């Protein structure tokens, strides 16, 4: 049994509260305590929400991918519920990621959007998973819905490592990933605090969303009431 199922709704709410508190603390440090960056001035502070959003979006899609694979192997609908929760969370984070990136791009690159490999593959990832959620809405049969969307998720997930490695494989406008060795300590604290904040918030939301999906599935697959003989 996965953590998301063992946790009761109270634990889901608790995770969300912890995540929100961490996000508040991390954002406060990022906005008002961390020093300005040498070349980007204060605009770089967007990275304190943008980078954690990116990490967690990829993590949510990875969770959805793992759940989709597990459903196809085991055929247990609890994995379908986790798949739905992970994909929906990933879409929310990836959509937010694109908007944050656009806000970052304007003052630093001079444009709101560029068809750079990182941006393009991220947009493809976002729209692919939006399509999967749409597919789930249109298919009424729970077995077909779970199977088709699991296969679609496995195909769409091919783009996730491409998103991650795009800045290394191509000479891209988007900067490469930083590491703790290349980032000064005062910048790391808000970055990590917000990363854990979004992680806890995401864990809480996936916990509740998985339970919601399981309740709907149970309702959908419940046998019809026997007819009363006249």
């Amino acid at each position, binding site marked *: 049994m996965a953590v998301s199922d063992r946790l009761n*709704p109270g634990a889901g*709410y608790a995770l*969300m509260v912890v995540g929100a508190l961490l*996000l508040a603390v991390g*954002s406060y440090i990022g*906005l008002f305590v961390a020093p300005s960056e*040498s*070349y*980007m*001035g*204060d*605009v770089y*502070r*967007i990275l304190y*929400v*943008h980078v954690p*959003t990116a990490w967690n979006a990829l993590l949510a899609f990875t969770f959805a991918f793992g759940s989709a694979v597990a459903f196809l192997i085991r055929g247990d609908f609890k994995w379908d519920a986790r798949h739905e929760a992970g994909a929906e969370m990933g879409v*929310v984070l990836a*959509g*937010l990621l694109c*908007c*944050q990136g656009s*806000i*970052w791009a*304007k*003052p*630093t690159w001079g444009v709101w959007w560029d068809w750079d490999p990182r941006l393009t593959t991220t947009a493809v990832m976002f729209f692919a998973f939006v399509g999967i959620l749409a597919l789930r809405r249109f298919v009424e049969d729970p077995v077909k819905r779970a199977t088709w969307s699991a296969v679609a998720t496995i195909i769409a997930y091919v783009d996730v490592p491409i998103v991650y490695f795009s800045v290394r494989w191509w000479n891209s406008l988007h900067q490469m990933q930083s590491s703790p060795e290349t980032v000064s300590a005062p910048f790391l604290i808000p970055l990590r605090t917000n990363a854990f904040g*979004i992680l806890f*918030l995401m864990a809480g*939301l996936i916990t*509740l*969303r998985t*339970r*919601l999906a399981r*309740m*709907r599935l149970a*309702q*959908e697959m*419940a046998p019809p*009431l026997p007819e009363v003989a006249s």
Partner: protein
Amino acid sequence: MNPTGVLGGGWEFVTAAYVLSLVVLGSYALSVVWRFRAEIRRAERQRRNPEVSK
């Protein structure tokens, strides 16, 4: 940007990014909680009266 190549200002973009993040994450969190509670209420109604249609 000034002649030294260092970006100046930009707080309006920073504010926009943080407000957008707050609105999106907050709205999604509220939507999940609202849908979860509505489903619990619906299940409870059906448990009390099984003849209520799905």
